[in-house]
């Protein structure tokens, strides 16, 4: 850092003709026109001041004196340098520098006051003991003892001691001035773990500070600078030790080596040992790590060790050390009592059990292989569709198990005769002999199933309503959870800086392992990058009004047409549905029931194709918007069709006094699902296959089709919505859906492998997945909840069939149950919970109020954080600028030193004196603030 300071001096020397003038100022800091020293003169202990205050700058004096790791130099020089600039108008001409002064609260004096205060309390006595501190002779001594390991670590600690004095988030700007100019950024991060969350990188960086390493560097250094002032070297060492790489590279030109290339070679070689490959990891960092690990439970400890970017051997070593330390402390501590031993044993068993079960489930994961193959050929984007599909499949297996065990098995123990014959068409229509099976609501009994012989009974009504209800609650929370997770991952940053070039470049898809696929991916990436570049080039060119107007008109027209088509489809479904009942009464044929689902599936298949053909006319400035717009239009179409169907079911079928309207709705949904499944098969087998044949054989320009992820995912969302509605009316539906999904997974996979190409555009898979899960939650699941709530609370269940026959509405099953329970004294708590919590309006009102208040508080916290992030970001930019400034200065200095190296030795001496004289001055200043 002296280098930096000297640099200032050189600057003045070269830039200002009145060099002597500034020299005088530098030397005579006690001169009356200097504001701080004037205050100093009021100080009673003025005599001691010179010695005492100068030691203030060197926090651990006894060690620092003899060592090159000279921590105080940091404070010393920074204060000095900045004071210079602050107080001498001449230096203000330097614009870069004055910028740093403008930073909100320039901490110069405050910072130093912190230092002095802390040091004063720590070892001020030892300071007073040391005479003649600033003498140049001591420096010469220090050269003889260049690598004192103690002082090294000591320095580190003592300098970091100051940081706890800046607690709180908003205190950070205190750091931004002097201290950080030489970029002790690592330390900064360490002390504010929340800010950027860098794992342990600085530990590796500090490698450089290990004695051996430094020793050699020092030797080399001193060999190169025989005739150089010694006071510089220790400070250089300090710099190298404290800061990471940046300063090392800085240090080398600053050393004023005459063999310039060599010094650079050194810096470029060293970094290889910068990372963890260094045989001896940094002792200080390691010790700290071990110390922090000892007090953690085993599991967390393993987690942290695992998370270190170290090699296996190093990790093992750390673990061993921790274990040893742990044993040591365990021997000293009191023996664990029996209870804790018991607990730990249980925890151990539980962990073991968990690992065994997780391994078991992993071995069951049959799709792992399939997904790997897809990933290797098509990358993460297509993989995300398939993982969504398998997720849905697993989810449906879960729903099936729930329904099967709590509703279907009890019903099967109480069989009813089925006298309808099976024809085969039932598979498609779901009617006929299927009507009298456990597939539909109508088959279930409303009585309590009693087991012969034993006394156990099973209330079918309650089982039905509770199973479905709990299932929906589980769905709700799991969806909410996964939605929240992906939202958190995708919207971490409130700033939108960029168009994502960097993301594009840094996120190579390592899952792709096929040679061909890699080539393809590379080509796609190239076009994407080129497009991105051309977009940036054209960004500044404002499109003419006429063009914008025409584009707007096209968008408007496209929206009108698409909405019109969607409304027309809905109208068609509406009229067909309402006329369907008459039609069905006239034609008793089963196949006639397929008309409505066929039409709906046709709409669902062809209208989206029609929508995507808009893309030929409709051009978007940002390609991502196109995908979003297509998704919005499609979801609008699908959801409104489902909405119309629900309206038809709840308003027409449910009040039509049919014999068993719930079963009819169940059948309708069954048919829709089946038809949709057939259409999907048809689409992937013939659609994609034919498209490929046409693309490769007939019209070569079309090429092989790309896999349309958005359309396929929307299809999945649509079927899942239908399933959720249907689960009440047909409890076995998850089983059917499970089978169809399984077939679809395989068909899609084969079709994909044979016919398709990965999408050429970079598909932001996880962002899209967030959107899809959100869609699954918002219009789809919440809509289903509304429909089912109406069914349960408002509609009158059919009188002759189903578990709820004879009740005014389904919810009356619960009311009745509570009524019964209230007569039994041992169950009064259930009644109390129901009356005061679940059934009470006041409770929900208060709950909502509390939730709203918490949400509001969190919202305010988020707002605060946003401001905070903004400030920190500005600070980082400022720091970077200062860093750049210092690099420039050092390079300049290096050049000028090349010249001055030819100067006689006396010149050096004089400079040294100057720097030492100045060494006193900041101390006086600090002193003033300290008291």
């Amino acid at each position, binding site marked *: 850092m002296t280098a930096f300071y000297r640099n200032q001096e050189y600057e003045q020397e070269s830039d200002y003709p009145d060099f002597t003038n500034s020299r005088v100022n530098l030397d005579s800091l006690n001169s009356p026109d200097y504001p701080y020293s004037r205050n100093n003169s009021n100080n009673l202990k003025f005599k001691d001041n010179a010695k005492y205050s100068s030691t203030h700058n060197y926090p651990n004096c006894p060690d620092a004196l003899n060592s090159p790791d000279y921590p105080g130099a940091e404070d010393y020089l920074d204060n000095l340098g900045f004071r210079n600039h602050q107080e001498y108008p001449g230096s203000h001409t330097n614009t870069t520098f004055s910028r740093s002064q403008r930073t909100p609260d320039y901490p110069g004096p405050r910072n130093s006051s912190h230092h002095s205060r802390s040091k004063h309390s720590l070892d001020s006595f030892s300071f007073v003991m040391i005479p003649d501190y600033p003498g140049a002779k001591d420096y010469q001594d220090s050269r003889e003892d260049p690598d004192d390991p103690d002082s090294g670590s000591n320095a580190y600690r003592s300098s970091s001691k100051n940081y706890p004095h800046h607690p709180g988030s908003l205190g950070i700007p205190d750091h931004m001035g002097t201290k950080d100019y030489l970029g002790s950024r690592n330390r900064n991060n360490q002390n504010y773990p929340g800010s950027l969350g860098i794992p342990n990188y600085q530990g590796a960086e500090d490698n450089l500070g290990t004695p051996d390493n430094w020793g050699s560097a020092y030797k080399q250094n001193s060999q190169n600078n025989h005739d150089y002032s010694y006071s510089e070297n220790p400070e250089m060492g300090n710099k190298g030790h404290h800061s990471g790489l940046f300063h090392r590279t800085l240090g080398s030109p600053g050393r004023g080596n005459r063999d310039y290339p060599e010094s650079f070679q050194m810096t470029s070689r060293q970094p290889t040992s910068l990372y963890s490959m260094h045989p001896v990891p940094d002792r200080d960092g390691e010790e700290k790590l071990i110390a922090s690990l000892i007090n953690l439970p085993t599991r967390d400890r393993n987690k942290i060790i695992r998370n270190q970017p170290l090699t296996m051997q190093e990790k093992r070593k750390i673990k061993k050390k921790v274990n040893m330390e742990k044993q040591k402390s365990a021997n000293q501590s009191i023996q664990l009592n029996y209870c804790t031993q018991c607990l730990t044993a249980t925890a151990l068993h539980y962990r073991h059990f968990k690992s065994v079960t997780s391994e078991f489930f992993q071995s069951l994961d049959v799709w792992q292989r399939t997904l790997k193959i897809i990933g290797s050929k098509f990358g993460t984007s297509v993989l995300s569709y398939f993982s969504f599909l398998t997720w849905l499949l697993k989810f449906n297996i879960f729903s099936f198990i729930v329904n099967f065990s709590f509703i279907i098995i009890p019903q099967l123990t109480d069989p009813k005769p089925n006298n309808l014959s099976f024809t085969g068409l039932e598979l498609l229509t779901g009617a006929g002999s299927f009507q009298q099976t456990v597939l539909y609501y109508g088959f279930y009994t409303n009585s309590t199933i009693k087991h012969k012989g034993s006394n156990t009974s099973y209330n079918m009504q309650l089982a039905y309503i509770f199973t479905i209800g709990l299932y929906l609650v589980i769905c709700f929370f799991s969806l909410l959870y996964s939605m929240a997770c992906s939202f958190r991952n995708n919207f971490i940053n409130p700033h939108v800086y960029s168009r994502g070039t960097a993301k594009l*470049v840094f996120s190579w898809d390592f899952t792709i392992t096929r040679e061909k696929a890699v080539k393809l991916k590379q080509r796609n990436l190239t076009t994407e990058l080129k497009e991105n570049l051309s977009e940036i080039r054209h960004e500044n060119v404002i499109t003419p009004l006429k063009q914008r107007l025409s584009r707007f008109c096209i968008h408007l027209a496209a929206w009108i047409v698409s909405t019109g088509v969607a409304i027309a489809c809905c109208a068609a479904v509406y009229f067909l549905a309402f006329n369907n009942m008459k039609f069905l009464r006239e034609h008793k044929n089963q196949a006639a029931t397929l008309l409505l689902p066929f039409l709906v599936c046709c709409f669902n298949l062809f209208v989206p194709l029609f929508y995507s053909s808009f893309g030929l006319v409709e051009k978007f400035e940002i390609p991502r918007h196109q995908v979003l717009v297509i998704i919005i239009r499609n979801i609008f179409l699908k959801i409104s069709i489902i909405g119309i169907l629900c309206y038809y079911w709840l308003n027409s079928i449910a009040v039509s006094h049919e014999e068993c309207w719930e079963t009819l709705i169940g059948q309708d949904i069954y048919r829709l699902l089946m038809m949709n499944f057939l259409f999907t098969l048809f689409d992937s087998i013939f659609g994609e296959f034919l498209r490929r044949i046409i693309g490769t054989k007939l019209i070569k320009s079309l090429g092989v089709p790309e896999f349309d992820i958005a359309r396929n995912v929307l299809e999945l969302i649509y079927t899942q919505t239908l399933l959720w509605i249907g689960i009440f009316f047909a409890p076995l539906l998850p089983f059917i859906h499970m089978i169809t999904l399984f077939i679809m997974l395989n068909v899609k996979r084969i079709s994909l492998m044979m016919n398709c190409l990965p999408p050429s555009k970079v598909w932001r898979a996880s962002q899209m997945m967030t959107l899809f899960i959100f869609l699954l939650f918002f219009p789809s699941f919440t809509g289903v909840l509304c429909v089912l709530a109406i069914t349960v609370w408002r509609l009158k269940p059919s009188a002759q069939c189903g578990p709820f026959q004879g009740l005014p509405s389904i919810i009356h099953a619960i009311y009745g149950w509570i009524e019964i329970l209230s007569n039994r004294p041992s169950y009064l708590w259930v009644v109390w919970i129901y009356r005061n919590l679940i059934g009470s309006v006041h409770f929900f009102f208060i709950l909502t109020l509390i939730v709203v208040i918490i949400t509001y508080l969190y919202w305010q916290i988020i707002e605060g954080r946003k401001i905070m992030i903004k400030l920190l970001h500005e600070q980082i930019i400022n*720091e970077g600028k200062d860093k750049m400034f210092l690099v420039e200065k050092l390079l300049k200095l290096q050049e000028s030193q090349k010249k001055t190296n030819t100067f006689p030795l006396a010149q050096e001496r004089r400079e040294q004196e100057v720097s030492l004289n100045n060494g006193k001055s900041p101390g006086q200043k600090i002193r003033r603030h300290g008291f």
Partner: protein
Amino acid sequence: MGSSTSHLSKELLTEYQELTFLTKQEILLAHKRFSDLLPQESRNVEDSLRVRVSTEQILTLPELKANPFRERICRVFSTAPERDSLSFEDFLDLFSVFSDAATPEIKSHYAFRIFDFDDDGTLNKEDLKQLVNCLTGEGQDTQLSTSEMKQLIENILEESDIDRDGTINLSEFQHVISRSPDFTSSFKIVL
């Protein structure tokens, strides 16, 4: 592979499980794959834990064969002084970092090192240039022109170089990565 000899001891397995993100099956599979790379006579447990496999042989694995960063990956994970060979533990480290369970922090740390072609601790313009060349491939038709490359690198720096010092350091890199959630799912190699 000698089926009778290819069992790692239980203690070693637990230790590997504790020190890596891999499950038992994955470790065993990795060991099997690693043993396959060894010459016939040294395919027993002791040798497989001791012997190093050269980078060229590691790169014959189908998982790495086509990867444009394959040499860098091997170099980063090698503990040999010349950085040209991998021991079994290095091999495990590699697949641990690229596994599903690895945290985003450690993934981004190693990604940074893989992209840091000259091992100097920051991504400078030269590193970025090499990185983009890896991404676009060697082919004549896919390579970017000099001016395009220059502009691209400027854009990258503009987006990710927060402190504006002309290079991207680890924290800046991790900051960019944290905003691209796809990274974790794509920085993955399944054995």
